[in-house]
């Protein structure tokens, strides 16, 4: 396969990207299409806990919530995956057995990626051996900003190899890349190096996911599809807290990539508090009333 020259920059007009996003944000999503979007968004969530204080108990609670988001409403979809640190993978795996919910694990010295490659690969293999279905890796942003694109590429390819059958999500940490052109370039490198998904952020750096950054990445995925016929998934993560935001992201996907990407195999939300806002809105659509947040479990 022939790779593009990553030293070449694909120009991106900042003003144009932001105008496009603000136009898409004007879509008015009502009634049936809103209910459908809320449920779709729920089914795309990587329900996440990535804290130093995570314990097996907390992860078990999280998994139960993932299986049954809100018992009061029976026909809800489950979330797509539960996302945890490598040490918690086995706990989650056991808890989610038979549910169809994937276990995703961050790896490669998340969130900074500042460890020798060998350790990052070991970290990945450990998570995979523990049963992770998906690996969320971070790229070496320092190397990227230093212009060492080949190194970034090779590292991703190495992690992909270490993943075996597990799906690889490559976190670009766009909050540290500063320009849309860098985001575009990092997306291209990741996709060519073997990413199954590209992901905006770790959630540990501000700004995390934004809509303009997501649009730039979706357009990179579109170009990759035009050129190779291969569909790459997208995962914005961090900072998506409300159902309204989630629906706006779905509009971006729908009008940039179309129907084939509107499912959990090709689009995910990395989020924790989003789940409850979606549930609250779904209940509102069904009953006509907002319930207090106290009616929704905080897992």
């Amino acid at each position, binding site marked *: 396969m022939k790779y593009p020259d990553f030293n070449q920059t694909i120009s*991106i007009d900042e*003003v144009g990207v932001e105008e496009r996003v603000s136009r898409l944000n004007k*879509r008015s*999503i*009502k009634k049936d*299409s809103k209910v459908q979007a809320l449920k779709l968004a729920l089914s795309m969530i990587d329900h996440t806990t990535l804290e130093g204080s995570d314990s097996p108990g907390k992860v078990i609670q999280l998994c139960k919530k993932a299986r049954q988001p809100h018992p009061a409403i029976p026909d809800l979809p489950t979330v797509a995956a539960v996302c945890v640190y490598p040490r918690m993978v086995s706990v989650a795996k056991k808890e989610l057995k038979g549910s169809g919910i994937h276990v995703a694990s961050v790896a490669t010295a998340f969130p900074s990626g500042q460890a020798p490659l060998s350790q990052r690969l070991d970290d990945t293999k450990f998570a995979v051996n523990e049963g992770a279905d998906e690996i969320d890796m971070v790229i070496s942003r320092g190397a990227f900003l230093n212009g060492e694109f080949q190194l970034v590429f090779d590292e991703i390819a190495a992690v992909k190899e270490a993943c075996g059958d597990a799906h690889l999500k490559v976190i670009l940490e766009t909050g540290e890349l500063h320009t849309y052109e860098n985001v575009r370039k990092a997306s291209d490198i990741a996709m060519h190096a073997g990413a199954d998904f590209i992901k905006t952020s770790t959630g540990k750096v501000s700004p995390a996911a934004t809509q303009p950054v997501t649009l730039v990445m979706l357009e990179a995925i579109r170009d990759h599809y035009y050129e190779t016929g291969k569909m790459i998934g997208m995962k914005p993560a961090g900072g998506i807290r409300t159902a309204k935001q989630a629906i706006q992201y779905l509009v971006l996907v729908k009008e940039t990539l*179309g*129907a084939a990407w509107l499912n959990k195999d090709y689009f995910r939300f990395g989020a924790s508090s989003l789940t409850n806002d979606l549930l609250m809105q779904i209940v509102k659509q069904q009953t006509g009333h907002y319930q207090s947040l106290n009616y929704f479990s905080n897992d």
Partner: protein
Amino acid sequence: MSNTETKEAAYKPTSPNSKLDFASVWEYAPAPQDSKFAEVKDQYDLFIGGKFVKPSKGRYFKSTNPATEEVITEFAEATQKDVDKAVKSARKAFEGEWSRISAKERGKYLFRIARMLQERAREFAVLESMDGGKPIRESRDVDIPLVAAYFFYYAGWADKLEYAFPGKKPEPYGVCGQIIPWNFPLLMLAWKIAPALAAGNTVVLKPAETTSLTALKFAELVKDCGLPDGVINIVTGAGQTGSEIVNHKDIDKVAFTGSTNVGKIIQKSLAGTDKKYTLELGGKGAMLIFEDAPIDQAVEGIINAIYFNQGHVCCAGSRLLVQEGVADKVIQKLKDRLETLIVGDPLDKNTDVGAINSKEQFETVNKYLEIGVNEGAEVYQANCDVPENGYFIRPTLFTNVSQSNRVVQEEIFGPVLTVQTFRTADEGIEKANNTPYGLANGVWTDKGSKIFKVGSQMRSGVIWANTYNKFDPTSPFGGYKESGVGREGGMHGLAAYIKN
């Protein structure tokens, strides 16, 4: 054969599906804008001397909603006698109260009009969409906000004319006859009335016969704001009424926006008189996309350039010139983007492309589609459903066209884009300039120096760089060559209402 069948038969998509699939999975439910609160009377009279008066011959003509083909209301047909009455009342106001009050007071009236327009913005937006077929998203977010912005801008100049034109004593012409088109009904009214009044003139304005509703609603607003009688007169009617205004002996200045053909007739009839005039006429804007351009944003810019307001824009970017190296990519992306345009009910908040303004224009655009196909162009149309009733045309792309084709040379004034390629900048510029028009062009490149080099060689009144169809009250607007005479907007637009 019913009307609907004719339209359905007009142009079914002939092109293969683009590679991405934008169908189903998740459809947007209808999101209709509430329109019940916007009151429309069964009949509207002429607005002369601060009062609504019946037309002298008692004749009225019907106005339809182009999205439903239903009659909305009817407007009075102004005859020579009515126009004469309107001009007399404008003259009386000019020689009376309007010239006696201070410039500051004049400005206050304009500020008041601007504020009242903002207060009633949603109502005007709804009516504009009902009467003219443009999507509510545009009338709500573009037309009406700009209308208020133009009034605010010129209101500020009213008492500062000496600073705008240092060294002379700025004086108004007197009575201005103004004729406006149907594509931006209220916005064109604002472009005409705001600078005329700021400079101290009085006006007789004729809106287009298919879109007179917001002008008469505006007349109601003018009455409410207490503007002295006769300063603004609004007469409705078709071409004949317009010609009565142009040829009236007591008109000092004519301002016209519309087709180049009518512009030429007006210019002929004004020859040999001492009437001043500004004409804002047709266009066939070219957009140059260079290989180094931000492609995705350029594609979005093209969409805004040609499918904005169904392509009923005199400065629409209707000719795409794309550098060979990126031509295939741009065309592929354009085709996919066409699939996501939502065509339909103008009052739905999600509609991107509304109804063609009138049956007449619908037929004109369809005629050009036929001409294009007969000339050997490849036609690509969005695969979208269009409503059964009403005048709708799918967003259209013509490829494989050449400079000599009529669809490349003539103004279509519809959602139809032609695509040509070029190799060098010189070739692109030559093609862009090879037209009798010269209203607006666009250039897309990542390189600032190229923008200036190419932009300075393109012969048109407006050059947009990496964007298109952006308007601002402070910026002058107008054409080269057959696109018009004079400028509107900014201080240039003010100068057009001041005696030299």
